[in-house]
């Protein structure tokens, strides 16, 4: 029972860290540009398909496909931001919602056309399969790897935002656009780069997540609610909030599916409604 509990906790943390990796970009863009982007999952899907294609068609090693998933998704994000998203930063939320639902539908139909409606298989290298013994516990090697990657990425992200000049610009733009612009910061370029970074992280998460979340054309719709949830519960515009929220949601979702499978996804939706009622502005509220 205790071993069980630790196992569920571990799987939940792995799942939650994956959710965090995909959603963190959404949190930053939402906090920064006040843009409700329902199409964020589509960038994750792009990363996933890049991984699968490179693995099966070109036979690249799994680790080598991940940076490429990041780059392709980031480029897609950059192009779309420059061409389309920026026109809607000042639009009403409804317009943003509709626009991003439209993009999502197009991404779903496009993926169906290119790759077919079926689940994509992923061949993990041998050293990522099976179990690893840690302190007398059997832990999934891949999930351990997943947690490791997310810890590294999060550390890099915190360093980037807290310690670099670019990070300072991002923080300034989130806090007060007008003042940041007045100080000579090219806010529109910061927006573009941040959007690309967020999309790239989603792509990386999508590639990493094939084994956990699966990958088929309905991916952006199926997990949309989870990504939004992480941001809405965690509070937009920060890194800490979504991290906490993603871990809570991950653990509860896995525990719910493990202990009360007959209730299924109910656990997570109930949790979401309760958390939103208790914290209408998110767990960590950014002070502007």
């Amino acid at each position, binding site marked *: 029972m205790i071993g069980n509990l630790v196992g569920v906790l571990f799987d939940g943390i792995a799942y939650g860290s994956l959710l965090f990796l995909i959603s963190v970009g959404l949190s930053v863009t939402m906090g920064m540009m006040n843009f409700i982007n329902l199409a964020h999952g589509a960038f994750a899907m792009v990363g996933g398909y890049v991984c699968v294609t490179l693995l099966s068609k070109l036979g690249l090693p799994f680790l080598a496909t991940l940076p490429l998933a990041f780059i392709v998704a980031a480029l897609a994000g950059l192009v779309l931001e420059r061409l389309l998203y920026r026109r809607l930063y000042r639009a009403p939320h409804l317009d943003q919602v509709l626009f991003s639902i439209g993009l999502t*539908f197009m991404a779903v139909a496009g993926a169906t056309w290119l790759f077919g409606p079926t689940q994509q298989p992923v061949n993990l290298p041998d050293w990522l399969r099976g179990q690893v013994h840690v302190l007398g516990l059997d832990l999934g090697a891949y999930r351990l790897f997943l947690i490791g990657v997310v810890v590294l990425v999060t550390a890099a992200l915190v360093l980037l935002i807290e310690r670099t000049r670019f990070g300072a610009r991002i923080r300034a733009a989130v806090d007060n656009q007008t003042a940041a612009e007045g100080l000579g910061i090219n806010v529109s370029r910061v927006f573009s780069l941040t959007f690309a970074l967020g999309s790239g992280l989603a792509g990386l998460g999508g590639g990493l997540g094939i084994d956990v979340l699966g990958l088929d054309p309905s991916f952006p719709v199926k997990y949309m*609610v989870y990504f939004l949830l992480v941001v809405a519960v965690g509070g937009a515009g920060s890194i800490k909030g979504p991290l906490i929220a993603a871990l809570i949601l991950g653990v509860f979702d896995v525990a719910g599916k493990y202990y009360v499978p007959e209730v299924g996804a*109910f656990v997570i939706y109930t949790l979401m*409604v309760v958390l*939103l009622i208790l914290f209408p502005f998110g767990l960590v509220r950014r002070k502007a």
Partner: protein
Amino acid sequence: MTPPLESTGRGAPDTSVATVPHLPNDRWKPLEIVFWLLPVVAWFLFPDHLVLVSQIMIVGLFALSLDLVLGYAGIVSLGHAAFFGLGAYTAGLLSAHGWGEPVSGLFAAALVAGVFGFVVSFLVVRGQDLARLMVTLGIGLMLFEAANKAAFITGGVDGLSGMATAPLFGTFEFDLYGKTAFWYSLGVLFLLFVFLRGVVNSPFGLSLRGIREGGKRMPAIGTNVDRRLRAAYTVGAAIAGVAGALLAQTTQFVGLDSLGFPRSAELLIMLVLGGTGRLYGALVGAAVFMVAQDYISGLDPAYWQFYIGLLLVLIVLFARGGILGGLEKLVQRLKPSTRKEVA
């Protein structure tokens, strides 16, 4: 956030052209009467497509209910199908368990959906756009999951069958060609439209528009914003329930998809396609959408979703206000002296 003066509801009737402020005038205009003759014309012109026309009217009613919530009260909802499905299951379960009388079934559906909408409205009104979006989405998904898991009541994925809708008023059988269904749907749609038309032109409806245009100013003139939004949401939910019940009674089947997210999203698309905040937009949008869906998905179902996505992006970028908004602008450009309004 958008500045308070700016319109927050997209496609809100363009008031910039109307230089003289005016109170809504609820007298029926000739164009409206012509509009309501269209279904009757359709009855004679397309006797083979009565089922499609009935579906359009039912979905149009559903879109009307969202127009009240979104177009007038300005509440962004991604889970309106919850109420549609709730109404459909209410009517369906009543009928499957022996209570097949249709009109009382509608009232029951309205009651159940309305009560649920009232309870939910407390949660919805609390937050801002993002939280509202999430709460409506979450509640929609919760109901879907509940219906899915409670297969012993709802039939789960297979849908609820075994319904037997009794003849309307004890005389008109629901036939295979959908003749009774046609007049029944038209009647209910028209009655509820007249009701909604009255609501949006009443002081209550005006206060909703006031809240939509500048929520911070309305408390200053003594409006209880939350209470009005709750009322609008509850009415919208009840009408969505009636639409669901109509669909269940006329097709004698309730599927899980009546609760699903795609239905909520499609509904939003229809509404913005027609134009929000003008009632007729909901009906025009539903008609255009359903006819296009019938036509295009007959050609190639896989690409339907792509075109719908493209259409949405284009509407948002270039055609705010939808079909009716575009027509209004066109009419105003042609006749700069006279003001033309549809609703």
